[in-house]
């Protein structure tokens, strides 16, 4: 990185020179890299004490006769500095010879570097703001003990009401927390709330607390007042809380790409100032509104807007409004709502020109731009105040378009793949399976088609048609069947997605059909249960198309996979749209129009139930009260929303609602629902129980009819006609169209998402606790605490998305590092020098599927076993943890190899040696964390070994942590321990008992006995199963004086030549069985007592929580 040339005097102080030329020196800070003298150590310490931390590499400019040096470049890495060095060498050095004086050379170099900086640093603006922010950021991290990667977004001055006293101080908003700090009259007030714990944010204005923001969490309410910028603060709080919620949804379902993108973007810009982050969030919000308004792909980022007019040829007028620019689109929306709206994809733009001499009228003359598309249509924008800038901007955006790439690729892809796939995408199924139509209905349809043809002749066709009031009116009346496919795609914006990802559908289908998974099975089961009344789905043609669309989508979006109701929606789409278009429409519904609806916890649908409830409460308060009393507010409309009314209304009516839904968005479902409730209000108010109320609504919905289309159902209509669908849709716009706006829905969704996610989290936690209690080891209190520790621990780590949770506790899965943190802190077994090894053994014992992750149950069992279980169970668990193949020969061997070839077997061993556990285990496990889990697992166990491992786990725990608790354990004898394994077990036992002399001696006694027993194995005629009696006899025998000391044993084990199976090893026949082990151990009263001790882990839990807080401070 080039820096503004600065004079330095001490060339060598604290620096080592790496390279020198006549005019330049490359230096390295002492304490970095190779040099390892005392002074360099000192410099390193000095730097970290002073917190100055200069960049470790720099380049100086000098001239032979001058004592003055100029720093011209610095870098954090050697590579970076070498690049700069290389550049200097190639570009600057050669020219320097042509100068006469050294002064000139210096001047030239400085000038050159300055100009480099000037061009490079357009975006790079470090000013006082940054320094100020850095200070605040520093204090924020110190004060609240934030992890380093927590990013402060903004801070505000305000008052926090603690009890009846307002405390003036600072409110800090960061990505995951909101914090408050004040220090007044020697009183310190700090508050730290995680966004993920917030259940509600309220802006209130009461007499007592005017203009306040109330934050409701699970634990209580917090009130803030005297905010200078209350609205801004509130909006930001809402936004941050929602990002947190989406992450929570995300954690279990996979990824939520937009927020991820934002977050990664944030993390890349670590040292940026607060206002940048804030600006970024603001921009994101603007972009969201923008994409929502014009139904653009969600990744679209708004670049800027400009007041201007749009000339509409169909009525020859200039309409005032606003032009929006983003990477791929130019959009326009009129100032008068719904008057005219326009979307021009930049990829279609052919020419942009200034149109001064157009002479089109009075107002449009100045500052006009004419945009011509490649489809020979042009759009005239006028009254642009800064026209040159806009034209410049558009051409800049155009230049960035990668559109040629798209076109070429897609052409080839289509040509190539059609041959290999054994399927062809279907045209709209209605063209293949014509339903009978009466002549009057045909006439109506034709009349409608004519109206639309006329309309489109005026406003254009396709993406860039003018969306006018007249158009909306036509939509409300119902789109003619033949045009549905086209117009749905255009209105919903799905056509844009389709164009942007050409060829993707075919690829997805080919891949999806050849794979076997749960989603595909579920889809298969529902194919004939989607729209069975339509002839297209009584036939393999329709069924196959439906299968392709659903399977392809499940593959495209694994966070959703397949959710019932999607089949119903998709089948209707297939009736009207060509297959690929239907696919993209489905994608648009799932991702944009009904976000999160179909994910694994149907979060979106739940959120919208909340939104509906709130809307009902405000619009129809008495009905809301009634439905609430009947307990059906939460349930009536779930299927209405999930299937877009298709499953509750006659099909030919529901599609009319869909017409408006694609045109106006989710608000339509809300307004139709409200209208239905409103119309039936009187009856509903009289109903006495939920069944009756549901019946009223069912009758009404089934009675809706449509004269303008043929009924699909061939069965005679039984329901009494209630209302014409066109009338219902019209009524919904008239009664609720204005009150229920898209912005309002979006706003309410934000609010209810907090509650829904919180609720889901709580119930997950409750279910987990319930499941864990069935193990009957730790008590409820401890489990509760443990779970909150786990949650805290997982909070910073990336959680694993779980497709299908076998049990609630599977949602909480810890990797080894996380497991270790908690286990070491809580378990009495992990206190000694050998703690790492024991933890690793136990981890592996609990990791029932060998994926490097242990569930919350695994952890609670692990801790429970060491604190609560009967002595026999505890010893059994310890024994099993050391049995092969859990403790594999490979690991034993690698333990011996470590001295020589440290890293050689990293790749093959799952856990490395026990001798060097802290480094190698973490290493191998952190490798696994990076997505190599599968590979390392594969290389660990052969199928036989995997079965053996499973058997051992069953034996150790009664039930493997993966199986649901409560099922009886199948009896299976644990394998005998070979000598090396047994020695490890002994080492672990020594470690557990080392603090108490009597215990230690007891272990030593038992150990001697067991070692002798192991020797007995050599005698061929000895029965495999030793009788209890002989064991006790043996136990009674006094340990001999040759008590082997512990270290001696270990050394012996290590010193043995690598026990490869081929060689005849003296230890081969040596073994100890579980029975022998247990009997001997339990014969020692001290040991039995020790392993029966009931330990409460509450103090440790408390300590761990305290430490977590402190740790994050440092």
């Amino acid at each position, binding site marked *: 990185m080039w820096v503004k040339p600065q004079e330095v005097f001490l060339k060598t102080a604290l620096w080592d020179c790496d390279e020198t030329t006549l005019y330049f020196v490359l230096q390295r800070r002492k304490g970095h890299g190779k040099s390892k003298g005392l002074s360099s150590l000192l410099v390193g310490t000095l730097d970290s004490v002073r917190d100055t931390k200069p960049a470790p590499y720099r380049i100086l400019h000098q001239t032979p006769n001058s004592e003055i040096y100029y720093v011209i470049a610095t870098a954090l890495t050697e590579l970076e500095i070498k690049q700069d060095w290389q550049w200097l060498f190639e570009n600057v050095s050669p020219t320097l010879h042509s100068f006469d004086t050294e002064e000139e050379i210096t001047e030239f170099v400085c000038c050159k570097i300055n100009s480099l900086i000037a061009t490079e640093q357009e975006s790079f603006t470090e000013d006082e703001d940054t320094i100020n922010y850095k200070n605040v950021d520093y204090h924020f991290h110190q004060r609240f003990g934030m992890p380093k990667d927590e990013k402060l977004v903004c801070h505000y001055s305000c008052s926090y009401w603690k009890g009846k006293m307002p405390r003036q101080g600072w409110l800090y908003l960061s990505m995951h927390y909101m914090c408050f700090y004040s220090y007044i009259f020697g009183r310190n007030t700090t508050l730290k709330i995680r966004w993920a714990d917030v259940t509600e944010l309220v802006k209130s204005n009461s007499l007592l607390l005017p203009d306040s923001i109330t934050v409701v969490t699970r634990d209580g309410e917090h009130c803030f007042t005297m905010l200078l910028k209350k609205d801004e603060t509130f909006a930001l709080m809402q936004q941050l809380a929602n990002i947190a919620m989406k992450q929570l949804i995300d954690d279990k379902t996979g990824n939520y790409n937009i927020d991820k993108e934002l977050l990664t973007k944030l993390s890349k810009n670590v040292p940026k100032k607060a206002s940048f982050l804030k600006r970024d969030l603001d921009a994101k919000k603007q972009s969201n509104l923008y994409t929502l308004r014009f139904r653009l792909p969600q990744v679209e980022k708004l670049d800027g807007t400009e007041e201007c007019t749009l000339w509409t040829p169909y009525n020859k007028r200039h309409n005032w409004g606003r032009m929006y620019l983003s990477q791929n689109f130019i959009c326009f929306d009129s100032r008068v709502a719904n008057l005219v709206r326009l979307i021009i994809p930049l990829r279609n733009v052919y020419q942009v020109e200034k149109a001064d001499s157009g002479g089109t009228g009075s107002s449009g003359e100045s500052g006009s731009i004419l945009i011509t598309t490649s489809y020979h249509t042009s759009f005239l924008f006028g009254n642009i105040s800064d026209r040159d800038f806009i034209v410049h901007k558009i051409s800049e955006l155009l230049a960035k378009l990668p559109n040629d790439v798209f076109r070429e690729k897609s052409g080839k892809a289509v040509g190539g793949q059609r041959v290999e796939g054994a399927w062809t995408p279907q045209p709209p199924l209605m063209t293949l399976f014509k339903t009978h139509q009466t002549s009057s209905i045909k006439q109506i349809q034709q009349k409608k088609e004519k109206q639309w043809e006329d309309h489109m002749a005026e406003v254009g066709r396709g993406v860039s048609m003018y969306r006018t009031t007249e158009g909306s009116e036509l939509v409300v009346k119902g789109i003619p069947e033949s045009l549905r496919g086209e117009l749905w795609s255009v209105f919903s914006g799905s056509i844009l997605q389709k164009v942007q990802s050409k060829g993707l559908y075919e690829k997805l289908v080919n891949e999806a059909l050849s794979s076997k998974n749960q989603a595909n099975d579920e889809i298969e089961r*529902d194919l004939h249960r*989607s729209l*069975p009344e339509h002839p297209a789905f009584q036939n393999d043609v329709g069924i196959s198309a439906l299968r392709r669309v659903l399977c392809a989508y499940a593959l495209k979006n694994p966070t959703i996979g397949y959710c019932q109701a999607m089949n*119903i929606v998709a089948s209707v789409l297939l009736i009207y749209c060509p297959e690929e278009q239907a696919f993209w429409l489905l994608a648009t519904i799932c991702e944009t129009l009904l976000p999160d609806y179909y994910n694994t*916890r*149907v979060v979106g649908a*739940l959120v919208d139930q909340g939104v509906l409830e709130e809307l009902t409460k405000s619009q129809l308060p008495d009905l809301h009260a009634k439905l609430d009393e009947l307990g059906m507010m939460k*349930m009536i409309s779930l299927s209405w929303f999930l299937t877009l009314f298709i*499953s509750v209304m006659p099909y030919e009516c529901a599609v009319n609602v869909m017409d408006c839904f694609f045109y106006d968005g989710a608000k339509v479902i809300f307004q139709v629902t409200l209208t239905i409730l409103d119309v039936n209000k009187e009856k509903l108010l009289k109903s006495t129980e939920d069944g009756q109320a549901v019946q009223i609504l069912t009758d009404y919905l089934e009675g809706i009819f449509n004269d303008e289309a043929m009924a699909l159902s061939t069965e005679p209509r039984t329901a009494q006609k209630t209302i014409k669908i066109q009338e219902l849709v019209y009524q919904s716009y008239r009664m609720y169209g204005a009150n229920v706006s898209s912005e309002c829905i979006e706003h309410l969704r934000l609010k209810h998402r907090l509650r829904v996610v919180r609720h889901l989290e709580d119930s997950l936690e409750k279910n987990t606790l319930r499941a864990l209690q069935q193990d009957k080891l730790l008590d409820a209190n401890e489990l509760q605490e443990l779970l909150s520790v786990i949650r805290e621990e997982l909070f910073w780590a990336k959680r694993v998305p779980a497709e299908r949770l076998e049990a609630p506790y599977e949602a909480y899965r810890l990797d080894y590092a996380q497991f270790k943190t908690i286990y070491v802190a809580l378990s009495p077994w992990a206190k000694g020098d050998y703690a790492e090894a024991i933890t690793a053994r136990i981890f592996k014992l609990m990791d029932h599927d060998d994926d490097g992750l242990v569930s919350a149950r695994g952890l609670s069992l692990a801790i429970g076993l060491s604190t609560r279980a009967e002595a026999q169970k505890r010893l059994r668990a310890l024994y099993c943890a050391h049995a092969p193949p859990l403790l594999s020969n490979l690991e034993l061997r690698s333990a011996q190899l470590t001295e020589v070839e440290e890293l050689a077997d990293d790749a093959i061993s799952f856990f490395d040696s026990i001798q060097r556990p802290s480094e190698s285990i973490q290493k191998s496990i952190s490798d696994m964390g990076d997505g190599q889990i599968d590979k390392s697992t594969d290389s660990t166990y052969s199928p036989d070994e995997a079965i053996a491992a499973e058997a051992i786990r069953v034996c150790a725990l009664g039930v493997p942590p993966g199986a649901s608790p409560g099922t009886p354990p199948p009896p299976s004898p644990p394998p005998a321990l070979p000598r090396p394994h047994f020695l490890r077990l002994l080492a672990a036992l020594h470690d557990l008992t080392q603090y108490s002399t009597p215990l230690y001696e007891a272990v030593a006694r038992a150990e001697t006995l067991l070692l002798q027993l192991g020797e007995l194995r050599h005698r061929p005629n000895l029965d495999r199963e030793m009788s209890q009696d002989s064991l006790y006899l043996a136990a009674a025998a006094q340990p001999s004086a040759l008590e082997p000391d512990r270290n001696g044993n270990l050394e012996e084990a290590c010193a043995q030549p690598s026990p490869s199976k081929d060689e005849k090893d003296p230890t081969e026949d040596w073994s100890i069985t579980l029975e022998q082990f247990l009997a001997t151990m339990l014969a020692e009263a001290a040991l039995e007592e020790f392993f029966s001790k009931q330990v409460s882990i509450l103090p440790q839990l408390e300590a761990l929580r305290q430490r977590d807080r402190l740790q994050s401070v440092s």
Partner: protein
Amino acid sequence: MSSRKKVLLKVIILGDSGVGKTSLMNQFVNKKFSNQYKATIGADFLTKEVIVDDRIVTMQIWDTAGQERFQSLGVAFYRGADCCVLVFDVTAPNTFKSLESWRDEFLIQASPRDPDHFPFVILGNKVDLDNRAVSAKRAQQWCQSKNDIPYFETSAKEAVNVELAFQTIARNALAQETEAELYNEFPDQIKLNANDNNRNRDGDNCAC
């Protein structure tokens, strides 16, 4: 008690997706089988009047969505249930294995007064198919281990045992109702917003 004229029983049908819940309900109520049902989203219900021990009983049968992701949404429908019917598909062992979790989930969510004696009925459906995979014995054993839940092997398609099963359901639910009356004296155990019959009963009591 004999003065009571109308009894309404709320019956919930649970079970994995595709085991035939909707078909069973329709076979019982409408006496017909169709393979043209849409997958159930949310919940649906039908009512039917039956005569049990000379009493007219209205059965309100709630059919629910089977896909796992909808399981937690069922809660709203469970409220005030008098009987719970668990259905599995005898040709699909997985659907049998899920019974346990459906039962647990129901008990947790509905939290009936007396979970140990709440009336359940298990139906092994699709016995008309050849590829049977769960034996009657295995199912029976499981039912016995769960407090002797009545077990029926049914075929919604061929109307095998459907009537009988629902009769039993009605009878068991009714027996539970009668028992419940004894409990009703304890104020803390009165169901809030309970279904129709509770309120009717109160009315009747006043009239007496």
